[in-house]
């Protein structure tokens, strides 16, 4: 089955089984390795990406549901040389240790601040509950999201 999606603003046509998870398509077919594979079962959040501004677990999202939808991965937030505000905030707060959970954290946070630019600390913590970090960088992650929220509001930090 061929599915056409818009990934980070670019039209992509993918030929695959209809129930192939989006995560596999991103990583194996589109060479977008930003979304991470931590369980494949919806238990860790490492694979979180945005589908039309909503956070989804790409390991559980079959491609057939995505015809014509718009996908944003961490690669769509900015680049190494030109990081977006969410990435900038994560660098400044030094939130990445091993870095494996970080793209998923950033995507879920991105969805939150897009939806609610005034999200408070409790809402941030609540929103990120689905995403696991084993390095124990939780407090830096929460701070980074708050900083990103401020950066996006233009208030600086």
């Amino acid at each position, binding site marked *: 089955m061929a599915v056409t999606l818009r990934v980070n603003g670019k039209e992509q046509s993918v030929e695959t089984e209809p129930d192939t998870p989006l995560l596999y398509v991103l990583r194996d077919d589109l060479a977008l390795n930003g979304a991470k594979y931590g369980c494949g*079962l919806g238990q860790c959040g490492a694979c979180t990406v945005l589908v039309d501004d909503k956070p989804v677990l790409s390991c559980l999202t079959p491609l057939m549901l995505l015809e014509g939808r718009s996908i944003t991965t961490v690669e769509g937030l900015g680049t*190494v040389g030109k990081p977006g505000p969410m990435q900038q905030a994560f660098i400044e707060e030094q939130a990445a240790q*091993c870095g494996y959970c970080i793209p998923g954290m950033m995507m879920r946070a991105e969805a939150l601040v897009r939806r609610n630019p005034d999200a408070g600390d409790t809402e941030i913590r609540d929103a990120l509950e689905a995403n696991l970090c084993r390095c124990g*960088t939780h407090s830096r992650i929460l701070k980074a999201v708050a900083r990103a929220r401020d950066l996006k509001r233009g208030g600086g930090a």
Partner: protein
Amino acid sequence: MSIIQDAVKTAVRFVPDRWLPGASPDPLREKHGLLGAPISRVDGPLKVAGQARFAAEVPMEGLAYATLVHSTIARGHITSLDTSKAEAAPGVVLVMTHENAPRMNAPAMFMSRPDAVGASDLPVMQNRDIHWNGEPVALVLAETQEQADHAATLVKVEYESATAVTDFQAAKLAAHHPQSILGEPPLFEIGDAEKELNEAHHRVDLVFRTPRHNHNAIELHGATVRWDGDELTVHDATQMLNGTAGTLAEIFGINPDQVHVSSPYVGGGFGGKALWNHQILAAAASRLSGRPVRIVLSRESVFRIVGGRTTTEQRVALGAERNGSLRALIHTGTVAMTEHNNCPEQFTFPARHLYASKSFRLEQSVADMDMMANTFMRAPGESVGTFALECALDELAEQMELDPIELRRRIEPEKDPTSNNPFSSRYLLQCFEQGGERFGWNRRDPKPGARREGEWLVGLGCATGTYPYHRMPGGSARIRIEADGSAVVSTAVHEMGMGTATVQAQAAAARLGLPLEKVRFDYGDTSLPKGVLAGGSTQTASISAAVIAANDELVKELIRLAGNDSPLAGLGADKLEARDEGLASVDEPGRHETYASILARAGRDHLEVEAAAPPPLEMMKYSMHSTAAQFAEVRVNSVTGEVRVCRMLGSFDCGRILNAKTATSQFRGGMIMGIGLALTEETLFDPRSGRIMNPSLAEYHVPVHMDVPEIEVMWTDIPDPHAPLGARGIGEIGITGVAAAIANAVYNATGRRVRDLPITLDKLL
């Protein structure tokens, strides 16, 4: 322990410091500026952009994807294998079983030789025998991961079971002393501790239990492998590059330099990212199929073929005089292990070094079970050993009506209580004093259950954390100075998020007198000079010792190249220091020449030196340990029994802290894993089938955002005169003492002592 090792230890004790290679104080240990500065991680921008390339993400032409099939019995053998359906499934390239797998040597077990890192010495898929429930019996290779996953379900295996030992309680009946506990004797005694205990004025005699744990790094174990003739390339997620290369070489009967292992980024290790069956099987399948292979274990497969921390049953008995001094310190017990590995979870080690006592009895046994070989996990031994020892001390303090910190003051030893060696540097009491003050320890009511806020009972607890300094022998480093005076320092070591890459660049810049921008640190690949493994908080010291050795060579070479026309002419290495991008006279600051100028005059476009670290004799002469005071405040719901940690503080004495940012993360990360150890983490092992029953992140509960409270960390920053850079390592100590501090706080809140982990609510109702 061998007689030779003993003799060396004794001899080293009498050798003056200045004769010990590598044991003369590192001048850098007192230097401030770059060293210790909160420099941001060098790899931060790559990681947040999704551009750090992990092992399972390395692109390769013509990849085939692998999935494992696991045995469903714990012991016995395969009676029949039917792979026809799987072979006929779409996309399948190959089904490999013991019937068609290439012949491979069994892995050499970890520590059996310097370069051996086999998790066990069992042959991998070479015969029909089954040794644990979950052992791989087949590997399916297909064009896509999904096709491999699907075909794996079609492999039919029949078994004949043999009687297996899968019940720890039963296995304990045949428990025995292992040959050694990481080089130490399994039984260590001073005086007659049982007799002293009986005659002591105050006594506690308690049993503690800790369950199995799994590392559960978020990155799953994965590798991308390829053969080019007899050359094997492995893109791995590993904390032991050279050991993996050496062990794989022997397994496949090739030379170590024919195996190339690369692992620049590792998505968390904690002891788990080692050489397991999957890399071996992927390489075998690649050889058999002629295709490059990617293997990524499912989370369940990780639980089945990657060992975790084993279960322990520990007795701690303490006898004290009226004045608080210890008359007897007994710490004994048993762990589950297999006949095929050597990882005895050294839980008695803290008791060897922490407190003074008139008599000691420290003894560890192992109970052989038919299970996945257990392994090292963050602070092996110390994490669970401190739980038992530090809870027992809390109980003793209560019985004596002494503040637990005051008790520790009274049993603080002047020298190492079991080796009699002097401490290289020890400020445990300072950690307690400064940490206690900051935490508000004096607000603790020693009477349990005294503080109530609505439904919640509130309590405070503390405990000692400890972890030894170790420096791994065998590491080398290379320093290359370019014509423009910039430097590249390289060695095959590991960065799993600890901050190695950043801290080593910082240290190298400080050592060479260069600004950070002019130094690059290369790591993560076996093409570089042989490195040390990342484990046991040893990497920083081990790398630094090699860099010091290489720097000594560099200075010698520079003096030679500088010749008589240099402002440095006539000065020996002992009269020179690195400063302002070059060398300068220690006594006459004006005499200085940059590296660039020395090289230019000598007509060289670069200068390269390489050297190996000297053997770690300082560990034999001194008792070298980091210590910590851990504090926790908990709230326990009086209706539901739910425990919430609401505040923690860790006060650490780890020698010099090299980067305040990355160190804070390491300490906090360890403490958070300690929350899991205390309250939620447990790998459930079915004693009937030997199968792990909760192989997923939904059923194995690692701490989540909601579980993580405000965590403060502080440190003494007192350099250890005998450690390179003055630093003793910080990766493990964060988790030690935490479970005890939390358990002691739970007691203070509720009056209930829970002595088996994790402290779940059912144990408090």
